[in-house]
């Protein structure tokens, strides 16, 4: 009964953590109500949809539009030409140069003229799909910038627990849970306590404390809830405290000023990336037991060689970008 209650509570916390930031995001709308939609199209175009037909002479005048990337308002982007759709509701702005779609673009549309009326100036922010951005953080943390194979973090736990598949998977799952819990707590403390009180120079101390807190909490709870798994982890659960990944993620969050949803995705990606790394490594090491390895290389040395080969393979992901 108490176990069920605990599970329910945990799910509720997770769901609120995921949903709260979205509710705020969805409400954002263009400053002028006459503009229905704005989006990137292809590599060189921005599409703007109006609520009603606009006047052709006004729409085709390049001087009515000003476009710049959000961080550099001084640098105006040159529009090469403009096309208006048949129903005169959709305007496509063509640019000669490729747009850097990782940056939000600000489009200022002057004195919109529709059916003989002046509807005022609109300022629109054109952004990539936010869910796509979240997904790219997730995939990035999991595969492209895999913490073990591309950043060489958390190696002690990685080599310690990758001898058997079952331990590796268990360790990976516990690690993911601890990772997400501690990253969300450190995000909250950093944004709402450390930053407002100008104490961000204490971030490392606070994050270390939070990590050991969540490890201790998982240790206490797991001992009661699942003693078998607890025995299987043995000393490695405590080793999570000494894992560099779990400290690296909160520091990355603090550096990049991520919001709650982005932090959640990064932490989840880092945790699952570690799980993937552990699983891959343990499947190879289980086979290595049967292989004829020269005596000098048996054990850890061959494991390091294998890890190096994995790192080379993961190098294939580098430079990839999704969405």
């Amino acid at each position, binding site marked *: 009964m108490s176990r069920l209650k605990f599970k329910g509570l945990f799910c509720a916390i997770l769901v609120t953590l995921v949903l709260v930031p979205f509710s705020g995001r969805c409400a954002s709308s263009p400053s002028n109500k006459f503009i229905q939609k704005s989006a990137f199209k292809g590599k060189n175009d921005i599409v703007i949809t109006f609520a009603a037909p606009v006047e052709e002479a006004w729409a085709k005048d390049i001087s009515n539009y000003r476009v710049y990337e959000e961080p550099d308002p001084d640098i105006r982007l040159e529009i090469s030409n403009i096309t208006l759709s048949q129903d005169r509701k959709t305007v496509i702005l063509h640019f000669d140069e490729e747009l850097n779609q990782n940056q939000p673009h600000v489009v200022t549309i002057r004195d919109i003229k529709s059916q003989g009326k002046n509807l005022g100036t609109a300022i629109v922010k054109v952004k990539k799909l936010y869910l796509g951005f979240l997904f790219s953080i997730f995939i990035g943390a999991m595969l492209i910038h895999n913490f073990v194979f591309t950043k060489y973090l958390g190696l002690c736990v990685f080599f310690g627990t990758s001898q058997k598949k079952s331990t590796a998977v268990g360790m990976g799952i516990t690690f993911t849970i601890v990772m997400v819990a501690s990253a969300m707590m450190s995000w909250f*403390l950093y944004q709402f*306590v450390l930053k407002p*009180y*100008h*104490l961000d120079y*204490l971030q490392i*101390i*606070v994050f270390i*404390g*939070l990590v050991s*807190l969540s490890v*201790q*909490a998982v240790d*206490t*709870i797991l*001992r*009661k*809830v699942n*003693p078998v798994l607890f025995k299987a982890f043995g000393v490695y659960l405590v080793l999570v405290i000494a894992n560099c990944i779990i400290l690296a993620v909160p520091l990355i969050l603090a550096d990049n000023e991520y919001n709650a949803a982005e932090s959640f995705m990064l932490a989840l990606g880092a945790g699952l990336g570690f799980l993937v790394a552990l699983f891959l490594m343990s499947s190879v090491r289980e086979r290595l037991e049967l292989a004829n390895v020269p005596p000098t290389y048996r054990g850890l040395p061959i494991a390091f060689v294998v890890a190096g080969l994995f790192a080379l393979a993961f190098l294939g992901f580098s430079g990839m970008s999704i969405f």
Partner: protein
Amino acid sequence: MDPTLIKMAIGGLALLGCIGLFFGIGLALAAHKFAVEVNPKVEEVKEVLAGAQ
């Protein structure tokens, strides 16, 4: 010393102390709730053994 610096330092100490206290109490409550009964004989046997290693 600049009084604003002292104020900041004391504020930081107080804040971190509060955080520590809060989480400490939380952990203590969790430990109480998820307590596992340990056989007292395990400790006793360990005490009697030589324990060099």
